């Protein structure tokens, strides 16, 4: 039982969620807890299960097995009167109904039987929040994708949901609209009443906006930042097992089939000369990027694949590393996590 975990404002809990599609386990979440008023970023590559997870949280898809608890009450079955409108999802390509912008924004309020004058006032306020004042009478289907995304957000905000789900909100919009959408999400962060869960490919965006990052890989939650994730296939050579990414071959600790691997950037050693050790994976490459993050420095090395390494600032300066320098990367096969 996980009910004992629901304390204070932990009000959305996913427990032992499995979802199968065409007999394939596309989502496997042993446990996931969302707090009230926090912003969560779901990060992962295409096909990682981000949208499926959002659909399940949004009660638009019933998981094959498992439970969803909201304020301690199981809601897995979905359709319940008191839940309607409390969990709202905005799709990657949101659908606007074939009417005016105003009709779209007022849709949820009409469902809630809000008075016409209040509807109008709330719709205007929400359109102002997304920077679309004066758009009320425009035909919704004639808007640009960025404007449509903003109308969809205004429509969702109008009903004041407790949980707002956004599936890749900035995937199909231009830079200007991306900035506006990020500001809207940041506005919700300040509000601290709505729990926001959004999916993204963009790690920087996730870092900027989210209180917590949830990384998905092949339907499973990956415990670390999703860097050095590679897809490919395993190759067996006698006692050795390699993982072939198509560009480089990496020794892995287990036999059998693997679809993807992950190497924690902190588990990779960087040196100016080949490092003599028992570690089986050693690659030469050149530094192509450096990013300082707190007391750490993240270095991107082109070693056939783009590998990221994390070292302390002290080590970085002592080694005198710089962009374009030739370096060697070494890591043990046991540092490779297999999916």
């Amino acid at each position: 039982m996980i009910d004992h975990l629901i304390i204070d404002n932990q009000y959305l809990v996913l427990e032992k969620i499995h979802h199968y599609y065409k007999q394939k386990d596309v989502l496997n979440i042993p446990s996931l807890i969302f707090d009230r008023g926090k912003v969560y970023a779901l990060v992962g590559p295409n096909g990682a299960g981000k949208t499926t997870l959002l659909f399940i949280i949004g009660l638009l898809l019933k998981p094959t097995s498992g439970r969803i608890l909201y304020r301690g009450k199981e809601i897995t079955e979905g359709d319940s009167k008191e839940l309607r409108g409390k969990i709202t999802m905005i799709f990657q390509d949101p659908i606007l109904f074939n009417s005016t912008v105003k009709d779209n924004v007022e849709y949820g309020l009409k469902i809630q039987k809000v008075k016409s004058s209040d509807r109008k006032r709330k719709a205007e306020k929400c359109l102002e929040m997304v920077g679309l004042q004066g758009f009320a009478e425009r035909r919704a289907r004639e808007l640009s994708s960025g404007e449509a995304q903003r109308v969809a957000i205004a429509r969702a905000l109008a009903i004041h949901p407790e949980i707002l789900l956004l599936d890749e909100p900035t995937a199909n919009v231009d830079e200007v609209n991306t900035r506006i959408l990020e500001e809207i999400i940041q506005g919700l962060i300040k509000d601290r009443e709505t729990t926001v869960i959004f999916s993204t490919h963009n790690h920087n965006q996730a870092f900027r906006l989210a209180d917590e990052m949830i990384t998905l890989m092949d339907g499973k939650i990956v415990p670390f930042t999703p860097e050095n994730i590679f897809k490919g296939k395993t190759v067996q050579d006698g006692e050795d097992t390699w993982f072939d990414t198509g560009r480089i071959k990496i020794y892995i600790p287990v036999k059998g089939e693997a679809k993807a691997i992950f190497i924690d950037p902190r588990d990779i050693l960087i040196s100016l000369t080949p490092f003599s050790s028992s570690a089986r994976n050693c690659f030469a490459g050149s530094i192509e990027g450096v990013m300082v993050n707190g007391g750490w420095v993240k270095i991107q090395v082109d070693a056939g694949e783009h590998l990221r390494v994390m070292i302390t600032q002290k080590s970085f300066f002592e080694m005198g590393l710089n962009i374009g320098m030739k370096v060697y990367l070494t890591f043990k096969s046991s540092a490779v996590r297999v999916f």
Partner: protein
Amino acid sequence: MHFITEGFKTAFFLIFTLNREVFEIVIFTLKVSFWGTLLSALFGVPIGFYIGIKEFPGKSIVQTVLNTLMALPTVVVGLTVYAFISRQGPLGEWGLLFTPSAVIIGQWILATPLICALTISATKSVDKKVGATALTLGANAIQESTTILKEARFALFAAIIAGFGRVIAEVGAAMMLGGNIRGYTRTMTTAIALETSKGEFGFGLALGFILMVIALGINLFFTYFQRRK
């Protein structure tokens, strides 16, 4: 050639002098076609909508049957209904044969598969995310369905217009079930068939013109409705 020009002259004379018999037939035809289409829409739209949005075993078979029924010959419908409502038929006691109700029943059976099949297409053409969006904004199942139907409104309207077109233009079922009784069950098409066989070409032509004007009027109304969106 002479009889054609004479026919046109008679037709215009009958129309512009508002010939009582011609307009009685027109009004009767519009009435039965309206009720036949309305009944068909009441059955065809919900059934088509359900088939359109739900997945169930045998769905493709149902759709194939409906598509086949779209091309159902009107005389076959007439014959089948006749078998049921004639004096010796299982519903013979109801005395429906050769009444306006019999014509409406025939038209209902004719138009329902057409409206149903076109409603399936209309519903399927609506993005699946429309229903999901409605649900996520707090709609219940009925409100979700209404939203999907609203999004499909132009295609649904076209489906109903197509149904109306089918019933107003058919002759076989109306002839067999209505009996083409003057002043009682005579429709435009049965009248055209009868008058032409009698050599009254002008009378038939007048009704033919009116039928075309009705079709044009409906299309103009539909175009206006679509532009207003």
